[in-house]
């Protein structure tokens, strides 16, 4: 595969959309999530195609918020984006770090989202989430001594 400036630019834009999505999910920001998706957004989790539309999409994140996870980080890496007609097919890796009161869960998986341009803005048309494994670890602590301050 030849890596062109155009491919790099498309990938940088999709990586930005992934980062904005993760920031909104981790910050429980439903308004931003609503802004990041198309009116007819679809979401597929594993093999399960969820009901389409913005409110059904947001219901998933309402359920996520209801879990009351203390600290949550969806780290997104390895973004590849490729124009495909009117849309952009993307792939990415993610590691979701879920710090709860009594345990930590680290989810390892992939996104294969479809992005599309809407009025000059890149939006999520189809969110595809595939979790590969969940790593269970002890609870984290919120006390940290910065180097040189102890």
């Amino acid at each position, binding site marked *: 595969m030849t890596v062109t400036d155009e491919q790099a630019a498309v990938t940088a834009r999709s990586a930005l959309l992934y980062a904005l999505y993760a920031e909104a999910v981790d910050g429980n920001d439903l308004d931003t999530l609503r802004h990041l998706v198309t009116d007819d957004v679809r979401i597929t989790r594993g093999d399960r195609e969820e009901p389409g539309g913005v409110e059904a999409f947001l219901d998933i994140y309402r359920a996520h918020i209801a879990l009351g996870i203390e600290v949550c980080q969806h780290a997104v890496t390895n973004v590849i984006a490729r124009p495909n007609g009117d849309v952009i097919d993307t792939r990415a890796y993610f590691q979701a770090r879920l*710090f709860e009161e009594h345990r930590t869960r680290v989810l390892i998986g992939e996104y294969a989202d479809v992005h599309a341009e809407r009025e000059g803005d890149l939006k999520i048309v189809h969110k595809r989430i595939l979790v590969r494994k969940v790593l269970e*670890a002890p609870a984290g602590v919120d006390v940290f001594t910065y180097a040189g301050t102890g």
Partner: protein
Amino acid sequence: MSTDPAVLGARSARVYYAYARAVDEGDLDRLRALVTDDIKITRGDHATEDGVEAFLDVYRAHNALNIPVCKHVVTNVLAEQDGDDIVTHAYFQATMLEEDKTRVVIGVYDDVHREVDGELKLAHKKITVHRLLQLPASSGTYAHVGTE
């Protein structure tokens, strides 16, 4: 300089990666080259420190910990123009592989970057740690596939 957020994000990501590499390799000269003369650093609720030497003192202290292997992985970089500055936000996971334990530090950076003579530099390092995960020590050996 482009104000396109995707381009800004890609440029700022390079600064983050260069910073992480310099920290993990304990390279103070490289760190010095990455920052502005009036660099500031803020860590958590600690008071902001000013100047290159105060900045480097933080990494001298980090080097003194003698962590055998340290990897600061920076992801989810967002960047936005704000006057002469570029205000950024990123996630980090610092994995500190020590002799008797492994520490995984999860947090965010909210750095300010600034263009100096055509080069993007770090003007204000802002570090907030959210959680520390304590794990067992790692194994020191790894057999690459096909080498056993």
